[in-house]
């Protein structure tokens, strides 16, 4: 698969860019934030986004999806990342939808994915229990109860947890680690939204004997989870790539506009060299993210390694981009009024979401056997 966009993908990118710039500009994100919107996203605009079919990009046409792949999902996520758009796309499509597509039985897929594609159902993947990303730790229990299960435990940092209609929860039953469907209104379920520094949605989810259905085979959840988290990390990296590119582009413009000492600050060689090194990092991040997205679609056995490579890279480069951006904007960059700081905040949260650079370098080494 080529690492440049096909004509169809370019068309999708152009459409996406227009739509996102129009409907999800940074200004819209600021409005949501400043209004302390209880949803944390814009339902009307999300509906419009779903009308474009984006929520169904990677899903089978049988479920109302577009039958496309991560290459296309990545195109859209990158554009959304450019404007810091707060949408449930990552949580509902890549994480939740991904889990259903991989683990669900036919009935579950039909029911849930159709509603996801139609923009009628939001999902959240509740898997993390520790403060540091460590997906192997599953203490939440699932006890069989009359053909169904009851779940008890606490999940942290559940992306879009408080707006999801359905939670997909990892838990340990007698058969091992499984994934379970929990209805947002279920008894014994408490969902507390957390206000994070990037003003996106996450929640702490507490389950006290909450009723649940197994998603597919309750013995296969551990394996599925690993694949879903890899795909999720790749999708998130695509979104981060948008933020990386945008913060770089904006800083570059500023370097060309800002006068100090009678010259554009972009004419100072020390800043030029930093910009040149930064440019290399942006380009390398783009390459590995594109390769990882395509690997999901071709289903090669290198997806795990590429997921770690892409997430490690985008984590480090995004944080660097936020930091360099604020520093080079100088005092202006420290003000809330200037957008560049928003990218720094998003970079921080995105870095820790689904594993930071340190985690993924460690994992890469493990996958490589050293």
């Amino acid at each position, binding site marked *: 698969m080529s690492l440049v966009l096909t004509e169809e993908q370019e068309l999708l990118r152009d459409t996406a860019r227009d739509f996102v710039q129009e409907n999800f500009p940074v200004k819209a994100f600021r409005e949501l934030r400043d209004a302390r919107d209880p949803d944390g996203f814009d339902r009307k605009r999300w509906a419009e986004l779903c009308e474009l079919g984006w929520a169904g990009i990677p899903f089978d046409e049988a479920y109302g999806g577009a039958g496309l792949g991560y290459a296309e999902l990545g195109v859209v996520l990158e554009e959304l990342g450019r404007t810091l758009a707060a949408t449930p796309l990552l949580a509902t499509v890549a994480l939740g939808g991904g889990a259903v597509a991989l683990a669900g039985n036919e009935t579950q897929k039909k029911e849930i994915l159709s509603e996801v594609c139609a923009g009628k159902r939001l999902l959240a993947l509740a898997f993390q229990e520790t403060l540091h990303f460590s997906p192997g730790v599953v203490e939440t229990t699932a006890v069989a109860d009359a053909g169904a299960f009851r779940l008890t435990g606490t999940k942290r940092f559940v992306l879009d947890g408080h707006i999801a209609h359905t939670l997909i929860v990892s838990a340990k039953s007698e058969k091992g680690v499984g994934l379970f469907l929990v209805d947002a209104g279920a008894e014994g379920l408490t969902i507390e939204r957390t*206000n994070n520094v990037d003003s996106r949605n996450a929640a702490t989810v507490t389950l006290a004997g909450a009723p649940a259905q197994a998603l597919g085979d309750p013995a296969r959840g551990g394996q599925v989870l690993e694949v879903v988290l890899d795909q999720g990390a790749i999708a998130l990296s695509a979104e981060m790539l948008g933020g990386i590119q945008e913060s770089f582009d904006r800083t570059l413009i500023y370097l060309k506009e800002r006068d100090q000492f009678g010259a554009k600050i972009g004419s100072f060689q020390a800043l030029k060299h930093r910009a040149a090194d930064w440019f290399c990092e942006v380009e390398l991040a783009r390459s590995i993210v594109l390769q990882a997205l395509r690997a999901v679609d071709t289903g090669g056995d290198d997806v795990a390694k590429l997921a770690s490579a892409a997430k490690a890279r985008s984590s480090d480069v995004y944080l660097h981009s936020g930091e360099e951006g604020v520093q080079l904007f100088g*005092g202006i960059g420290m*003000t*809330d009024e200037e957008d560049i700081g928003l990218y720094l905040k998003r970079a921080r949260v995105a870095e820790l979401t689904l594993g930071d650079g340190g985690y993924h370098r460690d994992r890469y080494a493990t996958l490589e056997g050293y």
Partner: protein
Amino acid sequence: MADLETFRADTRAWLEANCPEEMRKPMKAAGDVQWGGRNREFSSDEQRIWLERMSEKGWTVPTWPEDCGGAALSNAEAKVLKQEMRALNCRTPLMSFGIMMLGPVVLEYGTEAQKREFLPPIARGEIRWCQGYSEPGAGSDLASLQCRAARDGDEYVVNGQKFWTSEAHLSDWIFCLVRSNPKASKHDGISFLLIDMDDPGVEATPIELISGASMFCQTFFDDVRVPVSNRIGDEDAGWTIAKKLLQHEREMLSDPAGGGSPTGARKRGTLADDARKSLGAAEGPLPDADLRDRIARVELDQLCYNATLRRSADGAKAGRGVGPETSMFKLYLSELNKRKSDLRVRVRGVNGLGWSGDSFARDDLAATREWLNSKAESIAGGTSEIQRNIIAKRVLGLPD
């Protein structure tokens, strides 16, 4: 030396007799720091009494002359006072830009009349000052400032705006760099003016920072009339004062014991403790090798930095000047503090991502905000880029 020991004994006796018990306990809230000013409020009677007693004694500004509100102490005596206050855990009775920044300038460049007019109210905490240097278009290149002071008889008419005027909305007066001569070369047309913020035409609007804090303002001047007698130093000679102030500010910012670095000053659990807690790890090496290495790097850097500070202090004692190496301290410390603040967030895992709300502990939220605030360390008081320029030129002698 015998005199100094007598002074020490007297000082201790006085402090023991006069410093209220309450004022010897660690501060608990931001309001426990007294900044003075027309609208000053005291968090307690003890705080008020302590300030009154200290300022009456001239010990809020111990080295200043007596007719300026000070006690005319020698540097050695002032040091003894500091040591004794520390020994009894006495709180600083008054903090202010007036004491730290403006006072030394007025003492060096002001007329006798100016000293007697402006300094005693500073010493008594009656007037709170803020600084007006930067402008939206004049950051690193401060000398390109545009805020205009046109001479009109015995007055200047000031028009323009200042950026980063710290706590201007809480201050009474502002000391400003203004352009008094637009025709002169950029360094030669600047004057140093003192402006009452109650004057018509002055307006301060807080700036919201990325951390959510708003301790800085944008301050606007619209036909503000300032008497020529409020100018410190000669007309058009303000840049000399500005350079002195900047050097002074750099020194403050590079001293972790000083007010400059909240990151360095605040005491909390160590990084390793926080990491161990958030990782839920038992004793022994932390299970996250990356985090462990980051902590060790930052701690070793801090150790080396502290050793360098100590070496510099020892050098000063041995009669060797400090000079532009100050830029090295400012540069290194601000970059180090940024990394430390980053790490303070990182060791908390997702608990370090909070912005507000009860789901996060106060410490966690403070760490996040401080991380964002720390980004200003390499910008304010001369960016790291400016410090590198200064080191290259003044310390290393590299050519232009």
